[in-house]
């Protein structure tokens, strides 16, 4: 079965640079979530989109922004990167709001900020 696709899988950036992470949800899933997982930590919710509209917002820094496109893929844009942004970034997708709400996670993007 098709899964959530994330790219790139690994990304190395310098402080103050920008980064863009991409997420392609499971086919027919219309809801996308972004999570950040620091070393030894549990995943922390950042932001979610349903039908291309922002649905919920968690602990996302103002330096980060995200959007969902007409084909339902999503991008997380991160600016003025800091050392503390080094983490695994996961995207998850689910089918709508009234149907199955199980979130299926992608393999993640490992971001290293030097």
């Amino acid at each position, binding site marked *: 079965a098709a899964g959530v696709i994330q790219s790139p899988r690994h990304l190395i950036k310098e402080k103050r640079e920008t980064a863009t992470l991409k997420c392609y949800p499971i086919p027919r899933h219309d809801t996308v979530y972004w*999570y950040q997982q620091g070393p030894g930590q549990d995943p922390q919710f950042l932001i*979610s989109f349903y039908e291309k509209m922002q649905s919920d917002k968690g602990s996302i820094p103002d330096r980060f922004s995200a959007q969902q496109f007409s084909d339902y893929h999503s991008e997380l844009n991160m600016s003025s990167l800091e050392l503390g942004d080094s983490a695994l970034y996961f995207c998850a997708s689910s089918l709508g709001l009234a149907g199955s709400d*199980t979130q*299926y*996670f992608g*393999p993640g993007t490992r971001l290293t900020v030097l």
Partner: protein
Amino acid sequence: EDQVTQSPEALRLQEGESSSLNCSYTVSGLRGLFWYRQDPGKGPEFLFTLYSAGEEKEKERLKATLTKKESFLHITAPKPEDSATYLCALDSGGGADGLTFGKGTHLIIQP
């Protein structure tokens, strides 16, 4: 504020030695409780969703149960390949709300 507490933080078992992992929670309105398995450096892998007290679900050597205050993940006769971090998460809001995760239980099954 929703809270999820998992115990123990780490558990080491011999192959075939059954045990249970605990997830205690406080939430204003539970929409669903989820169990995930996570291997190092990989994304959480969905295991179970439980919606109401008294519900039970099974998959191979795993069985998840739910009460009004906690959930248990029972593992029967585990094998080394069951070694992973097991995460419990809550969905307490409406719409596309993010999950609130516990810190996880790091499970090691020794052959």
